[in-house]
């Protein structure tokens, strides 16, 4: 099949036809507008979970036995896994912004000496609280962990020191979402979930419909090229994706008063890759499905793991390793981090790129499979 000689006019004719059909298909239209609103309202209530082994960085200016005991006790609690030792405040900032760690523990200078003097030194734990369900457990347990570690150490090495009830002043600083409002986390996440769900399904349906109704045969007997058909079918739904995004963002602002730290425009621009990735999944599924029912079933098969393993339903770091591995492949996982990063943390383009390339890679792989499959099905 010749792929050269792309005709822009034929491509436009396909786009135009898709729009007419979209307009006449009231159910699909209702689905495109109704699903985002319904989900937004339903998912406004979060599901709790108790994740463990959350990556934690330590910024320590003190090398006393107390510091070491606290770090060790945090590890033993299984809530925290110390993955890094930060050297500066700047590094702490960056680790949190990029989402490399969930927590940063800052131990001030003379921490051990201050304990011995009974001065109640301040121990600071900064938490990336964009997803409040992820940090609730560890934060709740922290005070107990620290006090027990310090008291044990005191009993062992300094039994003569007089001490109060709390030898350390533990302070927790919840970044990005200080009031731990779950909607703040859920609503931007919904953006990704809804785009995944409707776009995959609608595209899979739009193409399978042509083969199921027999119209594909007529279409392929005309000089139209496969690429013109594929793009002509995808482009209208990119527009649909943007309409859905606008709907969700406006609703997020009006219904849940989600604060938008970062640039909404940046989210819109970067979402193009994510939308394209989902549409190409839809196109690829449609080359596998024999009828519209199968197309729907297959898109659910893609959608469920996306929703469950991406960190939307359950905190990503609370999942077992194999589930995290699967989740890391899915575009939604990275898109959630991207949107939360930009909208809630105010990340810019450079930080967002961390999460953009896995989506682009996924898109590339799927589109290659899709085009290869599409060529075969002509025969």
């Amino acid at each position, binding site marked *: 099949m010749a792929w050269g000689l792309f005709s822009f006019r*034929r491509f436009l004719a396909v786009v135009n036809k898709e729009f007419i059909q979209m307009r006449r298909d009231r159910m699909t239209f209702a689905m495109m507008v109704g699903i985002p609103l319904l989900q937004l309202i339903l998912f406004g209530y979060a599901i709790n979970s108790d994740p463990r082994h959350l990556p934690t960085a330590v910024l320590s200016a003190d090398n006393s036995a107390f510091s070491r005991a606290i770090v060790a006790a945090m590890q033993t609690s299984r809530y925290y896994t110390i993955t890094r030792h930060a050297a500066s405040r700047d590094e702490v900032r960056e680790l949190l912004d990029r989402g490399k760690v969930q927590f940063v523990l800052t131990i001030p200078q003379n921490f051990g000496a201050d304990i011995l003097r009974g001065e109640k030194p301040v121990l600071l734990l900064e938490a990336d609280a964009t997803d409040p369900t992820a940090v609730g457990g560890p934060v709740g347990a922290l005070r107990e962990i620290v006090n027990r570690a310090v008291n044990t150490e005191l009993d062992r090495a300094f039994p003569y020191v007089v001490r109060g009830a709390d030898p350390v002043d533990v302070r927790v600083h919840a970044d990005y979402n200080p009031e731990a409002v779950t909607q703040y986390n859920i609503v931007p996440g919904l953006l990704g979930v809804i785009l995944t769900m409707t776009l995959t399904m609608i595209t899979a349906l739009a193409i399978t419909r042509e083969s199921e109704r*027999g119209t594909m045969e*007529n279409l392929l007997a005309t*000089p139209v090229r496969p690429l013109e058909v594929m793009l002509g079918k995808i482009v209208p739904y990119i527009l649909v994706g943007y309409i859905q995004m606008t709907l969700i963002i406006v609703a997020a602002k009006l219904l849940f008063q989600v604060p938008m730290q970062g640039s909404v425009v940046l989210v819109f621009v970067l979402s193009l890759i994510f939308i394209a990735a989902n549409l190409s999944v839809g196109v690829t599924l449609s080359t596998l499905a024999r009828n519209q029912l199968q197309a729907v079933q297959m898109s659910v098969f893609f959608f469920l793991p996306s929703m469950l393993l991406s960190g939307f339903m359950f905190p990503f770091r609370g999942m077992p390793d194999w589930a995290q591995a699967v989740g890391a492949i899915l575009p939604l996982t990275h898109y959630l981090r991207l949107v939360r990063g930009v909208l809630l943390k105010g990340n810019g383009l450079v930080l967002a790129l961390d999460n953009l390339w896995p989506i682009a890679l996924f898109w590339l792989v799927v589109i290659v499979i899709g085009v290869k499959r599409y060529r075969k099905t002509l025969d």
Partner: protein
Amino acid sequence: MEPREAVIDVRGITKAFSGKVVVNGLDMRVERGEIFGFLGPNGSGKTTFIRMLCGLLSPDAGEGTCLGLDVRRDAARIKEQVGYMSQRFSLYEDLTVRENLDFIARMYGLPGRTEAVEAMIERMGLTPFAGQLAGRLSGGWKQRLALSACMLHEPRLLLLDEPTAGVDPGARRDFWDQVHALAAQGVTSLISTHYMDEAERCHRLAYIAYGDLLAQGSAEELIRDSGLSTFRVTGPDLHDLTLALRRTPGVDQVAAFGPALHVSGRDRAALETALAPWRGGAHTVTAVDTSLEEVFIGLMRRGRA
């Protein structure tokens, strides 16, 4: 008679689907302005062959030209000059008649698109339905719309796959008038059909069964080449007679035609002997011309054997 330009000229066209041969080494030559009938039982490979001609499928083996273009390499250019009408209605049911035609016109990049579409609507008598959704049309009008769509770009070759299936006799007659008018203008048609009266309207015919081309030629040639003689038998208890005759040597086939039986055989003398016991009694036996129908029944029986 000078040989005319070949519009379809293919040899050894073969196609198999998952190991099952559907079209087996088919040769076919169709000349310019001809109406070529394509017959054969369901599942005999007619549709597959037509799809290979218009580039929807690529043949596994074989070679040749369609409109002077290589069927294997130039599928894209062949598509531009061929009008293909599939067996099943394959325009958009959720677009109106006019929108469908307009879409097809855009696919072919027709100059003066709007005028061409309106002219076609007018010519095919679709004016009252122009704004109606194609899905709401009756069978005959759907067929008319499909034919309009495949004639829109003024193709030099029409490939029509059972275009009149499920269409009433009046609409069928209109359809054939159209095809003959186009043939007079030099447009070639390859039409598959199951109707004998339609086969008789074709200039030449091909009969294909289970992938093999069994016969090719004009109606007269096919009848002559079949070597069949036929007798018409009327009288009482025709059903019992049918069963008895089928067991009699010399009788190749027996088919009921209304109040009569048509009994055919390739050996005229043997057939006369077989029928002799029935002459002069309650039954009347008369020699008749063998028709295409008998030829095809015979071909179908042999194809299956």
